[in-house]
Every structure is written in structure tokens, then in C-alpha cells.
């Protein structure tokens, strides 16, 4: 599976992302944000960082980078498109995912491992997992507080578009286990067809045991396996 990993000025997780994707069997390659042709690519992962300096709002300027037209085309064709952290923010600004990521509830940059529970398998990153599975991934963000219109969020929950929630050690999405104030403890959401997803913690930084957790690998394996299903 050929996966494009777009690099914007200010992106900083692209090499980890390519490394982790290669580890699960994808042919991942970096593409500059000015690229206008992703033909031959069967998926996209937008990596984390601070695209275009996060100026104005995170993702607000990246959304208009030339490569995004191709990302939108692939998304519309049903190809898997994943945004990690800043990539998630870009997908929201681009209108490929509902909602927005606001500053963390306590206005602190959060950098620590968090627990996540799989609540829906309707997205390409969770399709290969069992609901109720608890994963540990590092969170590394200031604007990670997921927020959508109340009615829209209710629709998303009913449709299984909230795919991972921050949770405690027993898999319960409690208020105390919500690190950043995200609505409904949402840590990852998907579009209605499940081929576009955004995840705030970093699966690529937890993709080998030497990194402390290999749980992120399961999400990336699911992403790569999803090609056969779309």
C-alpha cells in the first residue's frame, strides 16, 4: 500500500510517521505540501507538528496548501485518510472531519501517555480492533480539546463516529481521565463513511515495544489493512 505523508513547513512528526508506517508494511513516502499529484497513492497520513506555524488557527493555513486538493480527492474516493495531532486539526479545518480542536481545558500543553478505549470499529483505524480494548498512546498537544456542535456530536456518537475516548485504567471514559476537556472524552473521530479519521494522541510514537508501548501499531495496522475493504 502506497501512503503519502505530506510535509508542511513546521511539520515535525513526518519521519516517525513514515518509519511506523513502514513497520506495518506500508510503502510510505514524504511529499512536500506543494505537491499537486498523489496519483498512485492509496492512502494519506497527515503527520503532527505545527503546519505553517499554527498561525491564525492550527490547520487554518495548511488547509489551503496545494496537496490538500489531492487529499480531498482521495478522501472522496474512499481511500483511507488519517490525521494525527496537527493532522487531525488540519482535517477539521479542511472540513473533512466535523468539529474543531480548541485549547486544552486547563490551558497547558499536555505531553504524557494517556489511555484510550476503542468505542467504535466503524473507522479504518479501529476496524481491526475489538470495542472495549484499552490502548496507551502519548498525547502531545496544546489544542487537543475536541468540540463539535451539540446536535452534531450526538449524531456522531449515534453513528459510531467517535471511535476512541480518553478513559481510566478500566476503560471507563470518566471526567478525571479526560486530559484536555474534549467533548465526550473524544480522542479520535471519523467521518460518516469511516475512511477519514483524526486522532489526537500519537500512534506512531507507540509503535514499537522499545518506545514503551506498541499499541499505536494496532491502529496503523488497521489503517493499512483497510485498503482491502474500501
Amino acid at each position, binding site marked *: 500500500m502506497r501512503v503519502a505523508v505530506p510535509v508542511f513547513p513546521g511539520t515535525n512528526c513526518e519521519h516517525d510517521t513514515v518509519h511506523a508506517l513502514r513497520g506495518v508494511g506500508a510503502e510510505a513516502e514524504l511529499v512536500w505540501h506543494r505537491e499537486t499529484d498523489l496519483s498512485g497513492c492509496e492512502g494519506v497520513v497527515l503527520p503532527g507538528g505545527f503546519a505553517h506555524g499554527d498561525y491564525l488557527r492550527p490547520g487554518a493555513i495548511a488547509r489551503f496548501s496545494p496537496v490538500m486538493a489531492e487529499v480531498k480527492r482521495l478522501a472522496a474516493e474512499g481511500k483511507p485518510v488519517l490525521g494525527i495531532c496537527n493532522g487531525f486539526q488540519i482535517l477539521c479545518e479542511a472540513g473533512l472531519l466535523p468539529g474543531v480542536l480548541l485549547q486544552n*481545558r486547563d490551558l497547558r500543553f499536555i505531553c504524557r501517555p494517556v489511555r484510550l478505549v476503542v468505542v467504535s470499529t466503524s473507522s479504518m483505524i479501529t476496524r481491526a480492533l475489538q470495542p472495549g480494548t484499552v490502548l496507551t498512546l502519548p498525547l502531545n498537544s496544546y489544542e487537543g480539546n475536541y468540540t463539535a456542535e451539540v446536535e452534531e456530536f450526538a449524531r456522531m456518537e449515534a453513528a459510531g463516529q467517535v471511535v476512541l475516548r480518553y478513559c481510566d485504567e478500566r476503560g471507563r471514559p470518566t471526567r478525571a481521565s479526560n486530559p484536555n476537556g474534549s467533548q465526550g472524552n473524544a480522542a479520535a473521530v471519523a467521518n460518516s463513511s469511516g475512511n477519514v479519521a483524526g486522532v489526537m494522541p500519537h500512534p506512531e510514537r507507540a509503535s514499537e515495544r522499545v518506545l514503551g508501548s506498541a499499541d499505536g501499531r494496532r491502529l496503523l495496522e488497521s489503517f493499512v489493512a483497510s485498503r482491502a475493504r474500501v
Partner: protein
Amino acid sequence: MKVTVHVTRRSDIADPQGGAVAAALRDLGFAEVAAVRVNRRIDLEVHGTDPEVLEQRVTEMCERLLANPVMEDYQVVVTG
């Protein structure tokens, strides 16, 4: 011409930054502070002479880039 855009967080969206500033002001003894919202002002210099056209164009800029309607409102003021 000069145009000012005020981008304000929608009233139904929490503003933790405003909350922190309000708490700090009260700590400093400004007990009368009931609430604070921290907003953004963007000043533009734009070529053109017709204020109506300018307002329309800058409104389009707000819709496409300067504001995110999911969380923000905006106001365009042509200042001359």
C-alpha cells in the same frame, strides 16, 4: 483602504483563556470583573475604493480563512 476584522469566539464556546484572565484580574483586586473573553483583531490594508465591495471581499476572506464558523463569529469594519 483599511479594514478591521474582529474575530470573536462564539458565546456558546468556552474561552478558557478569558476565564484565566478573569481569575487573575480578580486576584489583583478587580473584584468587579464578571467575565472576560479574549478575542482577535486583524487589521488589513486593501487596494480599492468602494467600501461596499471591500466589505464583501473581506467577508469572503473571513468565511474562507480568517474565522472558523464552528467556533468563531466575525465582524468586518471598513475604517477608511
